[in-house]
């Protein structure tokens, strides 16, 4: 009957309860939307960086982190590969050899990021073939390359043209070569799109005088939660080979910092939203409490304990908060699902602006359970804090004063 009393009290002023529920619902939906949008954008950034650049876990010579030089590449053969892949937490590996070189067309020369890659391994990590906009990919050792559309445009080159690469190989060897452009790739990150040159690992090793050497070995765990433990394991096992394993967080501290800063801004914004919503809910609870002081006085005078009365009123606030949050989750899920499958795509100037800053002009939504838990918990805590007011009022209520109210 206590539950019945609380439930009916909740609906004794339907309009007011519905308005309060709506404000909680709106807060939940808005909070879910903002958090999912931010998380989605961050995940995309991390994903792009990890898939095309660092990987989630990477093995490299311990000097390579501070000095990205081919001199700091490491020996990589089948035995090494077997040792890594034998751990059942490792899903697959992606070997790379990368360096900076000058890329020249007929008249123009530009700086280029040259990647020697295993296309089938890259395909698993980042769907490299899916990014191909023209032509096709090279075969190992066939002396051809695939370059970014942006770079092709800058050098005024097309599929079938020749590309000259010039730079420094391992241990100061001159690295120069002429390669046929076999295909063009549309890279989601502008910085890459304007600079990237892909070739097979054998071609890169030949060009850079780095036979059997690679600069990075990207490791994809079967589950991302194994990343840290695999990093510790490989660092320890390969220490005598002067090789270390780094996680994506180790390799991209600037990105982590930028994302943290972005998150902090969102937290402040959300904090303001929570405060506004919190005061709205408090207004309702305040009215619900004050207009029922007489009733509280009656219940106390006929023998209901203050504790039981406080529990009933707490149940009312609890039920309102849970109803608001759950309905917010329901409506929020519909909104999130829609944008999850139809991400917001920026067009025209905004698209250009995003590309300018190195971001994809797409805002994907993250659809993750912890976003719900976190937002639900914050709003639940706010309403529970607000419920302290009627509880305090009940425990300090003078029965006679209440009866006169």
């Amino acid at each position, binding site marked *: *009957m206590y539950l*019945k*009393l609380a439930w*009916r*009290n909740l609906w*004794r002023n339907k309009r007011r309860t519905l308005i309060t529920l709506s404000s909680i619902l709106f807060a939940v939906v808005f909070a879910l939307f903002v958090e999912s949008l931010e998380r989605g954008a961050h995940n995309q950034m991390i994903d792009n960086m990890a898939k095309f650049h660092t990987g989630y876990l990477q093995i490299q010579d311990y000097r390579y982190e501070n000095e990205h030089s081919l001199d700091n590449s490491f020996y990589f053969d089948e035995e090494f590969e077997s040792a890594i892949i034998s751990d059942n937490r490792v899903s697959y590996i992606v070997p790379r050899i990368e360096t900076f070189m000058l890329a020249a067309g007929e008249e123009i020369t530009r700086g280029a990021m040259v990647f020697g890659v295993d296309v089938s391994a890259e395909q698993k990590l980042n769907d490299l073939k899916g990014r191909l906009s023209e032509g096709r990919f090279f075969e190992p050792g066939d002396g051809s390359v695939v370059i970014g559309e942006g770079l092709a445009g800058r050098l005024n080159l097309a599929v079938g043209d020749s590309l000259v690469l010039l730079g420094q190989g391992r241990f100061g060897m001159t690295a120069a070569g002429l390669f046929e452009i076999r295909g063009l790739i549309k890279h989601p990150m502008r910085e890459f799109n304007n600079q990237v040159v892909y070739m097979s690992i054998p071609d890169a090793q030949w060009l850079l005088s780095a036979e059997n050497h690679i600069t990075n070995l990207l490791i994809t765990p079967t589950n991302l939660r194994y990343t840290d433990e695999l990093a510790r394991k490989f660092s320890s096992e390969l220490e005598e080979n002067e090789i270390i394993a780094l996680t994506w967080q180790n390799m991209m501290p600037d990105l982590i910092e930028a994302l943290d800063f972005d998150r902090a801004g969102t937290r402040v914004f959300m904090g303001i939203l929570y405060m506004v919503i919190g005061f709205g809910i408090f207004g309702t609870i305040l009215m619900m409490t004050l207009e029922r002081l*007489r*009733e509280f006085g*009656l*219940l*106390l*005078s*006929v*023998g*209901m*304990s*203050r504790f*039981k009365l406080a529990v009933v009123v707490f149940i009312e606030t609890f039920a309102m908060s849970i109803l608001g949050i759950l309905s917010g989750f329901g409506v929020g899920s519909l909104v999130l699902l829609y944008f999850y499958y139809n991400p917001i795509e920026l067009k025209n100037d905004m698209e250009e602006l995003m590309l300018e800053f190195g971001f994809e002009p797409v805002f994907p939504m993250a659809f993750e359970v912890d976003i719900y838990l976190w937002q639900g918990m914050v709003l639940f805590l706010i309403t529970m804090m607000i419920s302290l007011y009627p509880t305090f009022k009940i425990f300090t209520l003078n*029965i*006679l004063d209440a*009866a006169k109210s």
Partner: protein
Amino acid sequence: MAILQTKNLSKVYNPDTVPVHALRDVSITIDKGEFTSIVGPSGSGKTTLLNMLGGLDKPTSGSVWVNGEEITMMKESKLIDFRLHNIGFVFQHYNLIPVFTAHENVSFIMLLQNRSKKEINDRANKLLDEVGLGDRKDARPVQMSGGQQQRVAVARALASEPKFILADEPTANLDTTSAMNLLDIMYKMNQEQNVTFVFSTHDQRVIDRARRVITMVDGAIYKDEYRDVEEKAAS
């Protein structure tokens, strides 16, 4: 047998600023089965005395005894429980729980007493039948007249099987028919079930039915008289 007793009960409001003597040295004894009216003009201390008798207010000095137990020194938590099991209240403004039906309003007190579901249900039905509202069990207060609400309040007060019932101006907001109907019910319960009633009132209709009338003036007992009202009640 004294069911309710006050000894030199005094109440002073604002003792440090402008003292108001609401009660002055009030000593009364009420026996089981009495049908007593406390009367007097506004400000005479009727309601204050009733609040003291119900343990809703603390006296400045003196004591209140219920069934031989002093309630003035009781801690609040114990006093709330004591009220639940020993005192029934009927208020001027009905004071029913608006979201409950008549049946639920009567049942709620018994629920607080942790009685069994069956007992609660049976007793609530019986009491509502006794106050003539057997056919209005599922009505909410807003769907009932003032007289009907007050009858539910009487049934609620009786539900906990209290030692006595305190009724503060129970007929003040009722028309004559409803007031007489309510008084008949309370009188009948007093006569047939020996339920003790103490009213504060200045309603002549209530005073006419009371076998004992305590008249208060300026916080003190002015007159305490026993009367024979059998004839009036019968008429």
